[in-house]
């Protein structure tokens, strides 16, 4: 199965959940469709949704919740 990398378009802080007291958007093993939100990147206090650009299944997250990320950094690997 081919694997695709979902990258952050922005630098900032990566969040896997919509709010601290809520569950993760997606877990490893979940299937995703194009446009499904898998996390948020906070840049300068504004939040941007990170949507999958692939249909497939999440193999792994390359960044943890609250990790600082750079633009272009891989956030998740998706089996497509």
């Amino acid at each position, binding site marked *: 199965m081919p694997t695709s990398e979902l990258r952050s378009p*922005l*630098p*900032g*802080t990566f969040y896997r959940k919509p709010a601290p007291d809520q569950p993760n958007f997606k877990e490893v093993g979940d299937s995703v469709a194009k446009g499904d939100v898998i996390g948020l990147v*906070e*840049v*300068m*206090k*504004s939040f941007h949704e990170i949507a999958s650009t692939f249909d497939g299944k999440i193999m792994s997250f390359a960044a943890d919740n*609250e990790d*600082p990320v750079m633009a272009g950094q891989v956030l998740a690997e998706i089996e497509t």
Partner: protein
Amino acid sequence: MTIEKLFIANRGEIAVRIIRAARDMGIKTVQAYSAADADSLAVKLADESVDIGPPAASKSYLCADAILAAARSCGADAIHPGYGFLAENADFADAVEAAGMVFVGPTGDTIRTMGNKAAARLAAQRSGVPTVPGSDGVITDLSVARESAEQIGFPVMIKASAGGGGRGIRIADSGEAFEGLAAQAATEAQAAFGDGSLYLEKMITRARHIEVQILGDGVNAVHCFERECSLQRRRQKVWEEAPSSALDSDTRQMLCDSAVKLAKSVGYRGAGTIEYLYDDATGHFYFIEMNTRIQVEHPLTEWITGVDLVSEMIRIAGGQALSFSQGDIAIRGHAIEVRINAEDPANGFMPFPGKVSDLRVPGGPGVRFDHMLYSGYQIPPFYDSMLGKLIVWSHTRPLAMARLKGALSELDIGGVQTTAGLFEALLDDRDVQSGSVHTNWLEPWLEANASSLKAS
């Protein structure tokens, strides 16, 4: 006690401002920095610097334990919190004092009182400071409510006690309309929240945001006149002025006296700002809240009064009395501040954490640029987008606007999109030129002028 070594628990332009004040006073500085701020201008300018944790503010600038440990380890005897982060955290202020250091600001108890909206409103009312008129508590009887509404004066907002986020609000323009709308609001509130109780608040349709700078030493308090910050986007100030062009001298006197009264009633120590809504139509002002810290727009007050607010708050924290009295403070000229943010106004104010390829800073008489930039600086994406403030002064408001135009044309921050272009467009607007603005003025203007911002 005399402060000899000041720990700065903040970042960005305000950290630079505090370092400069301390340096003038012969006080050594220690700059706290997160991993993302190791290359910051403040770190380069301070006498010492200490790593306090990872980039996320929750793990560094908001982490009281890390800050206290760092401050102790470097032998600091005082902590300046700047604005934002822990500046209005009462428990942090207490913890600093408990650790045997000086918190540059009011006591934890003062922060607790003035930081709570209901408690602050009560403190204001007790010292005779007007608050936004409303019903005292909830209303149940509709005819009694109408009487109360007539007393408050129309238009009146009818709000659901259990509501929130704007739901269940009705606006009544007259007594005739009031009863029907109140009945509707009660029914809707009952259905939505299971509680039909209502309360009333005066609706101020054209309000200006006007705030009074105060300084207190715990015994005495003085004001340093007002600032007007009516140009706001998403409740964030973007352009501020001092003095306000809306006030006549009698109203200014009453406003500033009320702020001093409130400050004295809580034995205020340090620099603080008392915020009001000012109703253009009636000339009335209403207390909204107090900020128990130095504010972003403090340089406006420094321009028009000559008082160095940051030095003064450090001096007071060191146990000294106010170094001047009310009679020593007068307004001279007019100052305007614009906030230079790393945001693209032509693209919905999208944040732009770029690298500063080149920097040209405006100068000349009456021009001050408080900022955190240098050529080659990589702006970190983890914090507020404000890069600095351009503050100009001149003898009159029109002259200050002309000076602002010149200063904006000199400013060049290469490689980064900023809000500077927005201010050039605002300077050309007739309402801005005549000062006919209010807190809901800028957002519709931005929508109407989106295309011209794109063209610039």
